């Protein structure tokens, strides 16, 4: 069997495209943060810890989508949505479920856990179920569905991973930074599920599912998303400042975070107008969390132990979308290059002016100026 094709099929069925480059890299960024926070060394056992963290993260994400898709088949058919689960026969579904369950739970044979961890795992699965099960189906209850989604996609996995690493490190998990961080993550999750509801608004109307944006309408949804962005920026910044007090290098991230925000505000043509909630500007902060946050932490870890380079490479190949490389190249070529060019040209111009040479007046480049005598 063609392995590449099988992986592609599996990723399609589990809707990996929806989570592989969004909340999984962010959760992994958090995992790297825990490594840094708890000062865990790069050893065979911590590498295993990291690998199993990644596998169980994939497992939980896939399980969430599996349960959701499984119970959505009827409604999706009504709304004209493609339901990946309906493309599988019962045996394939069972096989897929077994694989996902293995990926979700097998890592816990190695990962440290106690009653609190078990409680968090149960809570995560309970949230999956109450969200999707036909007789409860809280996903059809506006507000509540957004809270549940933000909780199971972001908050619970974050608490679980932090708690697991604190168990591994044998250190207390409580810290002021974590309070701010968890608030920021909740706001990020709430914003993203609201955006997801906006994207699906026509399909949901068709299927008769009422979601928060439908109740609020575009104007109030705009305000909601805008408020969530502001709140998440405040909470995330405060959490970073709190970490910086203990780990000063993280302050570089605070600076980088603001630079990224300013760049995104410019690049996304940020305007708080009536189209805000349907424009790319609603994702203003996402790249910072999903791409740059894990990359920055990996760089920090590399400075502590060069072997993190290997994790860095794997992270790049598995959790960074190709479009990122393409866009970075374009930005470097179209935006950074002109700035560099102007900086260098002006430096040359003023340096030469110090020596009494005005290249502008002479209408010559530096090279032409030095070559003039040779002609």
């Amino acid at each position: 069997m063609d392995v590449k094709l099988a992986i592609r099929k599996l990723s399609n069925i589990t809707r990996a495209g929806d989570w592989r480059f969004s909340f999984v890299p962010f959760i992994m960024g958090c995992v790297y943060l825990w490594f840094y926070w708890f000062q865990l060394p790069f050893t065979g056992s911590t590498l295993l810890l990291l690998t199993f963290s990644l596998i169980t993260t994939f497992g939980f994400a896939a399980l969430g989508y599996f349960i959701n898709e499984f119970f959505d088949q009827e409604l999706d058919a009504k709304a004209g949505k493609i339901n990946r689960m309906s493309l599988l026969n019962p045996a394939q579904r069972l096989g897929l479920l077994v694989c996902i369950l293995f990926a979700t739970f097998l890592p816990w044979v190695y990962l440290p856990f106690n009653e609190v961890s078990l409680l968090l795992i149960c809570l995560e699965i309970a949230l999956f179920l109450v969200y999707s099960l036909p007789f409860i189906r809280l996903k059809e209850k506006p507000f509540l569905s957004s809270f549940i989604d933000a909780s199971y996609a972001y908050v619970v996995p974050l608490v679980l991973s932090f708690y697991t690493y604190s168990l591994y490190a044998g250190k207390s998990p409580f810290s002021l930074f974590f309070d701010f961080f968890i608030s920021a993550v909740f706001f990020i999750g709430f914003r993203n599920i609201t955006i997801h509801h906006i994207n699906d608004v026509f399909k949901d109307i068709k299927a008769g599912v009422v979601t928060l944006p439908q109740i609020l309408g575009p104007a109030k949804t705009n305000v909601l998303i805008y408020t969530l962005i502001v709140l998440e920026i405040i909470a995330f910044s405060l959490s970073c400042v709190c970490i910086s007090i203990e780990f000063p290098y993280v302050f570089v991230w605070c600076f980088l975070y603001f630079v990224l925000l300013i760049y995104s505000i410019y690049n996304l043509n940020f305007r708080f107008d009536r189209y805000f909630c349907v424009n790319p500007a609603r994702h203003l902060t996402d790249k910072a969390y999903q791409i740059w946050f894990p990359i920055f932490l990996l760089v920090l870890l590399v400075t502590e132990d060069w072997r993190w380079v290997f994790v860095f490479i794997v992270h790049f190949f598995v959790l960074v979308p190709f479009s990122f490389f393409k866009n970075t190249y374009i930005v470097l070529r179209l935006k950074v290059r002109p700035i560099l060019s102007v900086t260098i040209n002006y430096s040359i111009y003023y340096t030469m002016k110090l020596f009494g040479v005005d290249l502008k007046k002479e209408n010559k480049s530096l090279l032409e100026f030095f070559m003039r005598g040779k002609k």
Partner: protein
Amino acid sequence: MFENIFKRKINNEEKKSTPTNVGEFYNTQTDNFLKVYGEIIQAFRTNNVEDYLNYTASNARIAPGMKLIDAGCGVCGPAIHFAKSVSNLHIEACTISSVQAQMSKDRIQANGLNDRIHVREADYHRLNELYPNTEFDRVYFLESFGHSDNKAKLIDAVWDVLKPGGMLYIKDLFRRESDNAWEQLKIDQICEQINKAYCYHIADLTEIISILRRKGYILHFIKVPEIERSVFENLTISNDFQNLFNIGKIDSWDEYVFPIDFYEILAEKPVQHSMEDVHLYFMNKK
């Protein structure tokens, strides 16, 4: 230094449908339009576009011997067709694009219609300054009305040049309306994208009707173009144009909301002078 970096943004912001921008747009894009649309630059059409022009002439009630203004005439494709198919028409054609004006002149010459069609490069908001007032039987806009950034002024200018009893004919796209706020948002957003791409100001039908009525026009009809579905071209050419030249291109048809409706409007500048006369007119007691 920063001028260049922000140039793209500034350009995007300022690309509005002012007459100058419309002129520049057609100066650069007319060749592309001609490659895809041919001489009739209209999205809503029949497979055989001449059928649609005949339909237009009939609905605009164009009759032999009339004096017409083709406002936003393109390369005079429709004007040439009308001049050939209806006898003794005198058509004043007006375009804001110098390229289109020159192309129109060449085509008029090639068709030997110099004495019937006269073209000039001008802003149609100034029709009343360009042409003698109360002279014309018809002023028509064939998918050109939406380029106006001041429709009230344009309708005023048309009023001035029309004879009493003369008529204004508009065939254009109008912003669709929906009772669902999210769908309306999507419609408005797509309309904005179209406006940016084509230097357009897609009109709001209700607003236009209100302007016409306030001015005193008598509305004869507002209706969707009545052509059989079997001969309708299905906007294929307009989609081809968007795809070929990346102007207002639709990246995904998934979840696409159709943002516009096509309507024809025929409005008359009344012969009557007093309000009493107008009321009597409506009571068919002329």
